[in-house]
């Protein structure tokens, strides 16, 4: 096994570890930090079912964004939808046998690559051309778009520019997953290294590494956002009139018992 293969295997174990632990740590923090007050942005749903619908519309169609900024919505939605299809397409590298629905969408994955590029470029152009957005952008905001774009482009390059032995590549991935490592295609003796593949994989690892520390946390964040996930029911239930079902955080209860003044 070449040094390059070993380096990539280690990189991916490291990236996966950071990604999973980091993500879970952040989500754990969100879940365990109390939301002491009812602050849904109203009009808000009056029951849990309604909240599921509200979040569904937000997650799948970016409803609020659609209301506020049509261009950002268009590019953003293109990019995310395409990303979703692309991720599904890539499942074929991780599963054996490949599920039928995943087989079916394979051709769409390629179109999605182009759609995603257009979406990303659109967002990036806005970041430069609209003074308001330029004002709030810092290097990391540009970097994130460039990183994603580079991942898509290097991915498409493997389809159209440099031939990649995907059968061998799948064996490599499955090997990582089952701890039975094999060589990365294009790293054997006498083989020409597949630069597009190397770049693509490296950038994906980078993405995984920075995900938990970056604004990409907006993905889990949305589900924990009190303005969107709370039910509008502060006075609905008779039960709210008893101590047990008052919506009140533990820290607030603690301070209540300390500062018994005023009553």
């Amino acid at each position, binding site marked *: 096994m070449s040094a390059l293969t070993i380096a990539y295997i280690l990189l991916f174990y490291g990236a996966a570890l950071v990604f999973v632990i980091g993500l879970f740590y952040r989500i754990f923090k969100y879940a365990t930090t109390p939301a002491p007050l009812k602050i849904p942005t*109203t009009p808000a749903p009056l029951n849990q079912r309604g909240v599921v619908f509200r979040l569904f519309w937000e997650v799948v169609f970016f409803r609020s964004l659609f209301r506020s900024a049509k261009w950002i919505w268009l590019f953003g939605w293109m990019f995310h939808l395409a990303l979703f299809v692309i991720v599904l397409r890539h499942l074929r590298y991780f599963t054996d046998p490949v599920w039928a629905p995943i087989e079916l969408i394979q051709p769409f994955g390629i179109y999605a690559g182009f759609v995603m590029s257009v979406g990303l470029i659109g967002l990036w152009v806005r970041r430069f051309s609209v003074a308001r957005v330029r*004002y*709030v952008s810092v290097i990391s905001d540009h970097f994130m778009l460039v990183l994603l774009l580079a991942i898509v482009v290097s991915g498409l390059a493997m389809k159209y520019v440099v031939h990649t032995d995907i059968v061998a590549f799948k064996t490599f991935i499955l090997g990582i997953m089952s701890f039975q490592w094999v060589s990365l295609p294009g790293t054997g003796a006498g083989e020409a290294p597949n630069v597009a593949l190397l770049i693509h994989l490296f950038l994906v690892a980078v993405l995984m590494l920075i995900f938990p520390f970056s604004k990409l946390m907006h993905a889990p964040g949305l589900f924990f956002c009190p303005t969107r996930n709370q039910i509008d029911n*502060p006075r609905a239930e008779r039960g*709210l*009139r008893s101590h047990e079902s008052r919506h009140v955080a533990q820290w607030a209860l603690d301070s209540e018992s300390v500062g018994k003044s005023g009553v």
Partner: protein
Amino acid sequence: MAKFETPALKEYLEMPASLKKDSMVHSGPFVAAPQHQEPLGFPGELVDNWQDVAIEKMGELLGKYRSLRVFLDSCVKCGACTDKCHYFLGTSDPNNMPVARQDLFRSVYRRYFTLGGKLFPKLVGAVKLDEGVLDQWWSYYHQCSQCRRCSVFCPYGIDTAEISMAAREIMASVGKGQKYSNEIIAKVFKIGNNLGLPEPALVDTMEGLEEDVKDETGVAVRYPVDVEGADVLLVTPSADFFAEPHVDGLIGYGKVFHQAGISWTVSSYASEAANFGMFVGSYENMRKIALRIRKAALDLGVKRIVFGECGHAWRVAYSFLNTLAGPFDFLDSKYPVPQHIIEVTHDLIKRGALTLDKSANDDKRVTFHDSCNVARASRMGDMPGGQFILPREVIKACCSHFFDMASDTIHDSTFCCGGGGGLLTDDLMELRVKGAMPRMQALKDVTERHQVTHLAAICAICKSQFSKVLPYYGFTMDQVVSVHQLVSEAIVLGAKD
């Protein structure tokens, strides 16, 4: 105060042509003196190691409020909110774009609480908390009326109001509090209301109202104070006791209760619906004020609590009261706790318990201003969006000529009056006038299209703010009316036939 230019009202609401960086950095409220700070549990003046204290406080708040933590991490700088804030639209100062306002906080958060910010501050826009940053916080967190308009339009529901509240709490905790709000809170603790109106004066005022109504209508409508055993405790903003046009609303509440045969009282101990504890972001102070209402309800032995016309007060009442001062198991379980006066009146109208003569308001062509905190942070009635429907139905039951402003400026897209969130003070006059521009634009539009003459509101702050800023835009201060003033005009007193 420095001279400033009132923004011109155009044909349509226009995006600022260019960003005027720092054009509002000079605008900040007076700093609280020790006697305003200390009763609230804040240090009298800026403490020596304020940076450390501030960062520690920030850490504490991050552990207490999920909203803060999630909002600070989630923003993708998409820019969707950048043109949604009335203060940005009115001032063109880029730091009044909601995301930029958040970033003043976020950049400090990143520097001290995130790995990226500790390792590569430049790349992710992380900064140390220093005097310059504190000054910026002071200016721009007092240019947010906590109206939540940005939160409606953000794809992740990020509510800049939450961040403003946290920033203000941190500043107050290091000894730099806002004079206007803190002085008022201290007055509530000492006397019971924002205006510092003591019990005898309150009784006097209410007796005066009884006489006025008697003179005008010949009917003895009661305006009771501290009556034990009344059914309803009315908690209303203290401005209702004498400011114009607020007091006309209070007269209206009294007439409604009178006609419906509901016994009611105000309390001199809890003679204030407003709760500025929310504006300064202080849970403890907000709770202390809310507990006064609980105590008054218990002492007077009432069955229901009804709130008068006030925006943020209704938010604190509707959304927070059970949390802060519950449980209210001692009240009559037939009624929601608490109720809004609009809900009471609306219900009575629906049941045919009031006789209303619309022609009494025929001289008026009315539009309605949705107050931010009612529109985006609370509800009325039993369906989502009832807060938009009920007040309009009450108005329409009282006047023949009602016209809504443009659809992107009402309901949950409503524009703030420009004076909410603890900014209703003369030291922020320039900001208040400029921030009112989008609302004034919409008002001008209905004035031209439908010859609207009056702007009805259900918030004490909105009413005061409009009275003050309307003249800057070529309107007159008496064009703003209370919704219950319209009820008061239309209601036919006396026995029902």
